């Protein structure tokens, strides 16, 4: 259930050239300035954007490269896109059940499992609601349930908490942490918030200009950011203070 990727890709002005490994069960938090290619990477891994060269292996299966290119449904990935992208014409429970229905499960079984996930994420009461009638926090949980219900080998979360206000962010982060820990697949989380990084990441990678400029365990990166971007990000949340100097103060 791991990810191994070495790829070049290009979309508009941003081009990627990087190598990435995420072990099964591991959560990698990817940070980087706007335009560094984070969403491009997510789309390339999901199969929504063809890579120009390299190879991507998910759970031991070559999904792209060497003449192979599996479409998104056959990769064992699930994407929780920026802005959540809940299907506006389906109820919350139908949103969550979508992935199981698409993979051929019967309606009753898919619904039952979807309700189970909604209960696990503590929002069973919104099952029949349309997405337009969900609060930001509820919508975020529905989107999370929809992505994880298929037990993907690679889970891609593109700024999963960015739509939330401060009050719901903390509890949502705790729930997200618990959920991620329970999943056996590889998980990639994109964020701009150092608190997400500190709470969710087993490992951290910093993407700048399409390249990974820093990579390490969470502890390593918290102790020694190594890049100006990560340093500034940590300082903003008071997560970094070196004895030698007061950064950016």
């Amino acid at each position, binding site marked *: 259930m791991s990810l191994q990727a070495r790829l070049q890709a290009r979309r508009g002005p941003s081009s990627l050239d990087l190598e990435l490994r995420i072990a099964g069960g591991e959560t990698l938090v990817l940070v980087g300035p706007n335009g560094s290619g984070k969403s491009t990477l997510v789309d390339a891994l999901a199969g929504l954007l063809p890579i120009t060269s390299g190879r991507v292996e998910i759970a031991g299966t070559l999904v792209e490269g060497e003449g192979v290119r599996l*479409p998104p449904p056959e990769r064992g990935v699930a*994407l929780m896109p920026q802005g959540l*992208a809940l299907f506006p014409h*389906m109820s919350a429970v139908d949103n969550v059940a*979508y992935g199981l229905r698409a993979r051929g499960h019967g309606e009753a079984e898919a619904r039952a499992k979807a309700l189970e996930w909604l209960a696990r994420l503590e929002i069973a009461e919104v099952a029949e609601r349309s*997405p337009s009638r969900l609060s930001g926090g509820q919508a975020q949980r529905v989107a999370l349930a929809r992505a994880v219900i298929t037990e993907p080998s690679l889970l891609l979360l593109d700024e999963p908490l960015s739509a939330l206000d401060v009050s719901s962010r903390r509890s949502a982060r705790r729930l997200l942490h618990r959920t991620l820990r329970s999943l056996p697949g590889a998980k990639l989380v994109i964020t701009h918030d150092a608190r997400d990084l500190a709470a969710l990441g087993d490992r951290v990678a910093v993407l700048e200009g399409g390249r990974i400029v820093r990579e390490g365990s969470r502890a390593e990166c918290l102790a020694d950011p190594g890049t100006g971007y990560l340093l500034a990000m940590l300082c903003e949340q008071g997560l970094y203070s070196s004895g030698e100097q007061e950064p950016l103060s």
Partner: protein
Amino acid sequence: MLILGLLAVAGLVAPLCGLLLQLDPGAFVHQLGRSEVVSALGLSLAVSTIAVLIALVLGLPLAYLLARVDLPGKGLLRGLVALPMVLPPVVGGLALLVTFGRRGIFGGILGGLGIELPFTTGGAIVAVTFVCAPFLILSLEAGLLAIDPRLEAAAATLGAGRLRVLRTITLPLLRPALASGIALAWARALGEFGATITFAGNLAGETRTMPLAIYTALQVDPPAAIALGILLLALALVALVLLRGRLAVTPLGAGAGEGR
């Protein structure tokens, strides 16, 4: 601002009121019973409905190409699709005639296949389709462009193949655009005159649709023309109100109405 706005409303409504003021209810009912009227009305409904169906079958894939596929010269293609909207219908009819007419470019081929279009009901359908299809196609394209591509991307990563994405995400979200496109195209089809009379002629029971029947009646029996005109006006209104109101709101229900 207000005065000019009111002036615009008056300019649009006054002729319609004028038409209605000429209405003699007794004569109107009498007109409705005449066989020529029944035939013209039936023909109009049949021709316009078939034309819209053809436009839908051919237009939906074209709208999809325009909205979703990177084609070279797409701007030109879109311009060509929109051309019948701005082209005088009589020119459209003329173009059809020199292309599919008996001595037209493809006339021989069609004739060889035993298909004759000019001055037949089939020709009327072709002419009406030519004129009304752009309304449907451009409406569908706009509807497709308005769908957030991330919805389809999310569905694809959740395991849905292209057909399933189309069936469960794209088409349901396209319904409002589909409804308004159908309403516009059908109303336009119902009123089509120039291309039809040029390409298909004015043959009672075969190509004499309502607008042609009005034109014909106006030469000999103006009150009959007025009654027919009011009937067509009512029909077009019903098309707009019913199709737009119903199809656009009901099927998507709460989800789409409130969603965006």
